[in-house]
């Protein structure tokens, strides 16, 4: 008998000691991803105290493919297919700034009609990216309709882009010197009808998703990043604009034909997750306006491409060109030594800059808010990893 009692006492004593001695037991380590319905190609190490996150450390690099090193071994045209892979559903924009940089290094100017076609493709791609982002945001918050509607309406835009470029998502459409092919016959009318229909559908998103009291409760006042913090962290794109800084590369440093286009920079001052989720939606509405203007102002005739040979040589020098992509400023820093290949190529992407804000926003918030905060950062893991 005594032995059993002793044992029980011993166990109780040990158990009490363990829970007492180790304060770290209060903290639980969570590793979210890479196999997790709400993570994607991304892992985040989180420590929670009860329900509150006290430590967050993003562990990225699951899709790091060494694009910057690879591009040193390919010529300027051969670089296009692999450089657009980081964001395949926003591939015109990621090649747009590359094209601008190479055009500057080679010293050519695309024809005017080519510039318009490229801008149309870029705006359509922004719609494709943002609708996909919105669909995943819907499924993150458990709103299945918001997965189905944007993915369905996204196909309208993908259909347009496919007619225009020849592939659903990886277009390889914008090249240094313009675009690869002219728009097909009666594209203009089709584009206008589908964009008008898409815009009508966008209004319905507001009713079912953005004005939905459940979404409001999950996002309003959650993950606040005020203006000073946003500037300090150097975030970009919709995350920055949601914090009350009206900064859009299309406006502040217009490239190609954007200085002829009349549009507003959409921004909000509420600085919370709802603002970060709402600004891309406002951007989509603005994109529809821009596309209509571009179609209207586009010259009917003319060449679309200044043909360059595959092994074109660049002037020695360096350049930094950027465009406004779906996730913010997307810059290419290219150093050329006068050969047919870049000496060094650096992609500065919006995702890589925005992910810095994730630990800042997560620490102190509740675990249940993690998906809402994480995906509202407009983060696409592959683009950050490159």
């Amino acid at each position: 008998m005594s032995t059993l009692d002793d044992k029980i006492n011993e166990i109780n004593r040990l158990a009490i000691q363990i829970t007492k001695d180790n304060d770290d037991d209060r903290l639980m380590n969570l590793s979210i991803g890479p196999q997790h319905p709400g993570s994607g190609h991304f892992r985040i190490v989180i420590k929670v105290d009860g329900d509150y996150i006290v430590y967050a450390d993003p562990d990225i690099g699951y899709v790091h493919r060494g694009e910057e090193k690879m591009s040193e071994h390919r010529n300027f045209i051969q670089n296009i297919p692999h450089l657009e892979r980081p964001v395949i559903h926003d591939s015109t924009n990621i090649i747009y700034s590359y094209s601008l940089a190479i055009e500057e290094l080679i010293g050519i100017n695309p024809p005017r009609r080519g510039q318009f076609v490229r801008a149309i493709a870029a705006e359509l791609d922004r719609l494709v990216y943002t609708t996909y982002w919105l669909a995943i945001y819907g499924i993150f918050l458990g709103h299945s309709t918001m997965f189905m509607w944007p993915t369905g309406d996204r196909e309208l835009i993908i259909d347009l882009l496919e007619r225009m470029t020849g592939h659903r998502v990886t277009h390889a459409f914008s090249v240094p010197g313009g675009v690869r092919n002219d728009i097909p016959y009666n594209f203009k009318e089709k584009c206008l009808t589908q964009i008008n229909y898409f815009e009508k559908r966008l209004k319905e998103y507001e009713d079912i998703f953005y004005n939905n009291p459940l979404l409001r409760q999950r996002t309003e006042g959650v993950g606040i990043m005020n203006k000073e913090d946003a500037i300090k962290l150097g975030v970009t794109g919709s995350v920055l604009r949601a914090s009350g800084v009206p900064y859009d590369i299309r406006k502040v440093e217009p490239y190609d034909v954007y200085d002829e286009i009349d549009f507003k920079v959409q921004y909000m001052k509420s600085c919370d997750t709802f603002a970060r989720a709402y600004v891309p939606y406002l951007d989509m509405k603005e994109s529809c306006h821009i596309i209509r203007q571009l179609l209207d102002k586009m010259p009917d005739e003319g060449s679309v491409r200044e043909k360059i040979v595959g092994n074109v040589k660049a002037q020695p020098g360096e350049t930094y060109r950027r465009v406004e992509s779906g996730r913010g400023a997307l810059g290419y820093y290219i150093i050329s030594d006068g050969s047919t290949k870049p000496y060094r190529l650096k992609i500065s992407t919006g995702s890589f800059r925005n992910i810095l804000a994730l630990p800042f926003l997560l620490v102190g918030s509740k675990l249940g808010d993690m998906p809402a905060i994480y995906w509202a950062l407009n983060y696409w893991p592959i683009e950050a990893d490159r």
Partner: protein
Amino acid sequence: MLKDLVNPTNVNIYVSKLSDVLIKAVEEPLGYAINWGRIYSLWPVHLETGCCSVEFGAASSPRYDVERFGMLEAFGSLRQCDLIVVLGTVTRKMAPRLRMVYDQMPEPKYVIAMGACAITGGLYLDSYNVLPGADSVVPVDVYVPGCPPRPETLIQGCFLLQEKIKRSKIK
């Protein structure tokens, strides 16, 4: 005479013979039934290895709606899945995780390699961080080419996989 036939040793033999006949009679239809069940409940693991996940998402969109065929219903739990779609590039950092996920899945399990990167490494043939294809990590049943493949191609690949399952013998 009858007594000889029905002694305990003989009964054992009869029963075993009868069960052999029964198994033979049942095996094929039963296997067919089990396979039939399997092909219409292909549940994939939600492990995104690369950028083909965008077109995987598009495949479950209202336009293509693969759930019409009872497959690719995403967001299942790992332990209840029988299909893993390798969605693109397998990097060195992701490869151990991919194998880990594959090992945790219950038998029978099937693998679809989606996209050029998952088949041979594709564009990243000389990259320092990309493996030349998913079949160096997991055995692959069906290859779906494209970069990324159209959702139609993925659906066609799933039809091929269904055909393969239909013709396989259950153990």
